């Protein structure tokens, strides 16, 4: 028994040392990683809505989230399905210069996340793909400027890929990805619209 205790103890020791070291390193890297994350998000946000200086987070509960949860997963009930998060972009004068939100939809082989900047008139200002794992050479080309720039200044109604009769030229060989991006943005715009309407209503009621 004593022998086994000794074994256990040695293992404990090794584990303890290792975890101690890791904790140290982690305490050093964690803020950097966190920072990186915020920074990239922030950068993306400013990129798609350069006019804005400050971003204000808003989150509203949606009655019926339009975006179908990713069909291929049995997931934790995460935010996003019942909650819609967007940011209100304001300039130095506290004027609303637009909104940003992250549009998500399952494309060909992954959920594509797009940072969308929206003008106050609810047309798209600029978009940036922030996360996707589509097929390299096909769907993955959606990150390219030539594709994303098409979306600028489009209104909700105009958001449709060419194959569906719209004016967005889909990526060669990747209509599915293109369609997913386009439609996710459209849904997001819808959400913002409802959110703003609700707010207006509330304000009116008040």
């Amino acid at each position: 028994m004593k022998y086994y205790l000794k074994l256990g103890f040695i293992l404990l020791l090794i584990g303890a040392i290792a975890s101690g070291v890791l904790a140290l390193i982690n305490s050093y890297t964690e803020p950097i990683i966190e920072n990186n994350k915020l920074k990239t998000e922030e950068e993306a946000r400013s990129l798609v809505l350069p006019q804005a200086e400050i971003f204000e987070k808003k989150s509203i509960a949606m009655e019926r989230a339009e975006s179908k949860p990713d069909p291929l997963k049995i997931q934790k009930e995460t935010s996003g399905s019942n909650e819609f998060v967007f940011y209100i972009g304001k300039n130095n004068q506290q004027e609303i210069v637009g909104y940003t939100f992250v549009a998500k939809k399952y494309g060909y082989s992954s959920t594509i996340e797009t940072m969308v900047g929206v003008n106050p008139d609810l047309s798209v200002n600029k978009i940036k793909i922030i996360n996707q794992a589509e097929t390299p050479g096909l769907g993955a080309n959606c990150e390219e400027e030539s594709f994303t720039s098409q979306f600028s200044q489009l209104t909700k109604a105009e958001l449709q890929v060419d194959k569906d009769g719209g004016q967005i030229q889909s990526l060669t060989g990747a209509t599915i990805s293109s369609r997913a991006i386009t439609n996710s943005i459209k849904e997001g715009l819808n959400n913002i619209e409802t959110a703003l309407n609700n707010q207006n209503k509330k304000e009116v009621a008040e």
Partner: protein
Amino acid sequence: MIIVYSVATLGILGLIYGLGLAYASRKFHVEVDPKIEKITEILPQANCGACGYPGCSAYAEAIVNNGVDINKCAPGGSAVLGQISKIMGVEATATERKVALIHCQSGGSNNTFFRYKYEGIPTCKAAVQLSNGPNLCNYGCVFQNDCLEACNFDAIHLDENGMRIIDKEKCTSCGACVKACPRDLIELVPVKKRVHVLCSSQDKGAVARPACGNKTACIGCGLCVKKCPVDAITLNNNLAVINYEKCINCGQCADVCPTAAIFDPLKEVRAKKKAEAKAKAEAAKKKVEAAKQKAAEDKE
């Protein structure tokens, strides 16, 4: 604080697992062959499956129980190989090295007489099934190269006459060819023994001699038996057979064999040596004589 937590968590996890395993290993202990355990310990425990076995211990078991090759562990490399061979291979190195030998000098299309034209699958096993094989000799090589196919070490080759030559360097005396030959022509012989009866015909001379396309059939005359100084040759069923434990490579049998069924590669070497020896002896003799003469002269 995090540090405390993390140290505690991992420590506790480690402790629980360690104790659990320790307890289990006592409770569920199963006896295994110590040899297996030893080899298992030597193996890298990477359990990578590169050896083709499900994990290191399975491979160790296969080595000990099924005599599988010991060179299959890729991550272990040569170091591990050496250690295993120490455990396993004590007996492997002790015996005298042998190589395969084909007891037939016919068996190519140039030096064979045919009974019929064979059209069928190219294996000796099948060929001997059809009317005793395509060659006239009922005991000789049917040259469909089963032995060659069987050799995993690329030790058997065809020479320009289509005869099978065994490469003594490459042959590992695994015996695969011995098993493959349906005519039982192949034997593993000590590499040091060089004089061989290269015929397997058990026919009487009158049948055997005309059947052999190489004209080197053993006709069972028995001259070699009489000649052998150490009684290493016997006649079994009209065929001379050398007992390699007794054979001293003297080559006298080959000298008397009327059909050259016995082959002595040392003949020339021996002749040369003999000549040299003779020359030496003569020289010595001359020297002695000269010395004698000189002595005699000196006396005078």
